[in-house]
């Protein structure tokens, strides 16, 4: 009998707090783990679900567009470009790159709330590729739509996405007209966005064709950076759906409000199918907990979660609260069972080791630094803003491996290489260096002068699954004690370092040992898990 959606009643400590944080934010700092452990599960959920903070200021111009045919010279450096309709190809490419750097910056500077994790969830769910969309203003507008609805109402978000300019480009909605309907969006809203392709998904090819006709007539206005409805391109006949949708007929409408009315009908019809809530809950489950959904989990976790979703008219917060505070979520088998996505690994690594960037407004320094992280993520197969295709990343849908598809003989060496770079030399741009400072990290621990506590704390903080006492003893001896056997050897070195950092030889020894230890732990397979 597995644990169910019943609220978790067990003890609340550092390990449960860390598990919750690792799954809900990208990398938990030592301070956040301490704060979460101190305040109890209910207050933690309150904080994670609080999206009242203002939206971040938009990306700014940090590029030089002078080589473009139509450079955006009226936008000053440091000012945002998102409302300027310039759609020169070169400018658009620079802006899309600017957007990606900015996004990585938002991940770096995130607070302990679900906003970033859920924004990425929706990006994976309503996947679009910025390279295909082209227009950077659309790309940002689409992202802002996901971000502002990250913890909101799924129905409302789906409706908005359906006529969002970037989506109208990406899945050809802007070309969908009554004379020759384009089925691209119509298929994906059913197969990928709302109903899914589980055993309970029974929509038909005729439903794809009918929904395509409902969605005819929407177009984009690049100058206004918005979409609009063109009734002359709309199919005004009735659209009849299969028995899966109860034989629903969406009455053909005419005039300027036809598109909105029929879209409202379509959204209502799609979400009235029980499978919609089940599909969305499975997807959330796989995002936050684990990919394998046994029939037992389906019955005792997914089905009641889906009922919560329906009872709350597709508000996402009650669903997340129920899942993240359930006894099921804290079962031992799941602790450390997620293979980290590249973003979880890279951004998480930077945040849990408290790597410092320039201040939030120092865009000229930060954007190039963030650009390096965009490149790392891309090489590890998570190019934020450009998932592989409309189904998002394979790790979240592809049977049978799911998360395991992140890791193969090509991506694994890259992961370790980037971790090594950041854990040792770091990288430098314009004189600003990004690197882990292991000594600053271990200073936050309870007893850094004691090599046993130090290793315990560091292992707990970094690894998804612990290592054996024998393994720790070996690490202590080989790295912290430099082959000696007495603990005081380390204690003396640490205390000397704290008292007299100017003792160059000792300081070098301490920092080298800590760096080696951090690098060693990050090289372990256990570090790839969370």
């Amino acid at each position, binding site marked *: 009998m597995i644990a169910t959606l019943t609220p978790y009643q067990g003890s609340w400590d550092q390990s449960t707090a860390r598990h919750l944080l690792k799954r809900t934010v990208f990398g938990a700092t030592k301070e956040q783990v301490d704060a979460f452990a101190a305040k109890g599960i209910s207050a933690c959920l309150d904080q994670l679900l609080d999206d009242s903070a203002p939206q971040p200021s938009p990306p700014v111009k940090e590029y030089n567009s002078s080589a473009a045919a139509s450079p955006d010279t009226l936008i000053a450096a440091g000012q945002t470009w998102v409302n300027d309709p310039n759609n020169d190809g070169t400018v658009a490419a620079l802006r899309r790159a600017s957007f990606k750097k900015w996004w990585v910056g938002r991940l770096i500077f995130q607070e302990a709330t679900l906003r970033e994790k859920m924004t990425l969830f929706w990006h994976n769910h309503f996947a679009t590729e910025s390279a295909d969309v082209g227009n950077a203003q659309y790309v940002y507008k689409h992202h802002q739509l996901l971000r502002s609805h990250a913890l909101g109402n799924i129905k409302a978000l789906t409706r908005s996405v359906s006529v969002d300019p970037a989506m109208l480009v990406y899945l*050809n909605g802007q070309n969908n007209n009554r004379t020759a309907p*384009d089925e691209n969006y119509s298929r994906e809203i059913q197969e990928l966005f709302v109903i899914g392709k589980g055993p309970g998904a029974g929509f038909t090819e005729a439903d794809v064709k009918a929904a395509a006709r409902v969605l005819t007539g929407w177009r984009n206005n690049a100058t206004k950076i918005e979409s609009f409805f063109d009734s002359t391109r709309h199919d005004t006949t009735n659209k009849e759906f299969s028995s899966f949708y109860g034989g629903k007929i969406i009455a053909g409408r005419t005039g300027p409000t036809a598109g909105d009315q029929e879209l409202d009908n379509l959204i209502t019809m799609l979400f009235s199918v029980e499978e919609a809530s089940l599909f969305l809950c499975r997807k959330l489950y796989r995002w936050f907990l684990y990919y394998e959904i046994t029939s037992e989990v389906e019955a005792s976790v997914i089905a009641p979660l889906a009922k919560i979703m329906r009872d709350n008219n597709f508000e996402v917060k009650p669903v997340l609260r129920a899942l993240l505070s359930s006894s099921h979520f804290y079962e031992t088998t799941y602790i450390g069972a997620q293979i980290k996505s590249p973003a979880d690994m890279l951004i998480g690594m930077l945040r849990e080791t408290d790597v410092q960037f320039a201040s939030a407004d120092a865009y000229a320094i930060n954007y190039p630094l963030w650009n390096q992280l965009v490149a790392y993520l891309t090489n590890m197969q998570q190019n934020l803003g450009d998932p592989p295709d409309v189904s998002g990343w394979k790790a979240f849908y592809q049977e049978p491996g799911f998360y395991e598809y992140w890791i*193969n003989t090509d991506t694994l060496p890259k992961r370790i290489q980037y971790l090594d770079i950041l854990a040792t030399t770091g990288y430098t741009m314009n004189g600003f260096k990004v690197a882990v400072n292991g000594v600053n990290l271990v200073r936050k621990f309870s007893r850094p002068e004691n090599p046993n506590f130090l290793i315990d704390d560091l292992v707990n903080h970094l690894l998804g699954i612990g290592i054996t006492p024998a393994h720790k003893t070996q690490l202590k001896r080989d790295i912290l004690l430099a082959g000696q056997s007495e603990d005081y050897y380390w204690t003396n070195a640490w205390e000397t370092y704290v008292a007299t950092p100017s003792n160059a030889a000792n300081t070098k020894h301490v920092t080298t040992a800590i760096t080696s230890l951090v690098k060693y732990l990050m090289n372990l397979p256990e570090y790839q898990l969370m």
Partner: protein
Amino acid sequence: MDRRRFINNYLPAGLMVPSFMSGVGFRAYASGHQLLDNYLLPAGDNDRVLVVIQLNGGNDGLNTVIPIDKFGQYYNARNNVYIAQEKVLRLDRHPNTGLHPAMTGMQQLFNEGKMHIVQSVGYPRPNFSHFRATDIWMSASESNQVVNTGWLGRLLDELYPGFPSNYPNTTMPDPLAIQIGSVTSLTLQGPAQPMGMSISNPSSFYSFVNNQSDPAPNSYAGKELTFVRETYRQTQRYGDVIKTANSKVTSQMPYPTGNTLADQLKIVARLIKGGLKTKIYLVSYGGFDTHANQVNTGDTTGGIHARLLGNVSSAIKAFQDDLRFLEIEKRVVGMTYSEFGRRIKSNGSNGTDHGAAAPLFVFGDSVQPGISGNNPDIPLNATVSDNVPYQYDFRSVYASILSNWLCVDAGMLNTVMLKQFQNLPLTKTGTCSVLSPVGDPDQLLVPYPNPFFSTIKVQFKTAGGHTLIQVLDGAGRLVKILIDQVMDPGTFETQYNGQHLPAGVYYIRLQNEIIQQVKTVIKV
């Protein structure tokens, strides 16, 4: 089953079986037969290689292999994306079929006898979802069946039992399969783990130390830890092998630049020449989901699809030229596939929506030149629902390559392919078992009356053996199986009462061992 079975069924590439053996399955001679044992080469650099090229997104078959003899219907169905008849590239000995104008390299390969086109490849009850259709192709499952292993993953699991324990070893020191790129494909998924290795740059593997392994807990977390550890181990073990093979090749023929498929095939050629015993290589090239702007307005020979096909064609041509230069041309056969073709009728966005069957290409020095199957039938006034029905099951293509090129024996073939499939003459006679291409089977299948109102009669001729007769609807979906049994040779008749069917286009499909035929019938 073991590797020995595979070797036993192997004939050296390029060696023709004497003609007196025509019609005799090679397996009968496999073990201990003096004549053939002499032909067996030592395991080494003589092994056969299969290169599989995935065209992601659903390639528009009708604008790739163009039905010149049905040009009027073709034009009617897609007057905004059709390729003008005078622009279509011509194929020697096949005046009714041509290639997209961007495919000059593949036209040359075809005319040199190094390419085989298989028309209308698909399967019963086609699926129109990218993801499901891709899974079907990669797993080689039935359309309504979910199989979580890949067809080549199952093959490698049979050939190299127990992998990854005790691998690499002296018999197989190299990766079982190599996928170029950073992703892991379902195609190579074995029953317990992926059977292949992914690489994007064979010259630079980042080295790292494999640390001590503590026992993995018996939990989901332990399961994932074990997976990650296994990937560590394989990366380290095979990394050096690949670097070494890669560094042995110092000179290659030029490949087109700015063409990621060419970049991938260039690596494949290096690694084969570099001495890897790896038999399977996977590469992929995306962007074929051409719902919009498939062609340029005003010049349909330009646009997204032209660029894609041009790159595919020039990459494959450069690869073939390089294989010849590297003197490994006889060892390599390649095939393309895409998860589906596109709709017969184009849409209003200068594009085409998801469809059903489509042609694929098998290429290499050892392929049987020519075309299997006929140009697809296109209705006079195609509607948005009309699809190209399949003539060949894609699993027949897989099975034929496995048995006739990689020399997988019948027992293993059944295990890998999950059931029996039609054997097609895609590779030259005598590479393993013996098959000869058949002449024009035009009169093998005669449905009448046509058009029909209620009952349609089907007269058919079978050469004996397994005989299958199916009724498909206009979208290519299976409606009814009329005959599915082993028969004696002869001419027979069956009938079908289609009174309940909606009026429209239907297809009658005959499959008799290597022979197949599709006839269009109209229900009124």
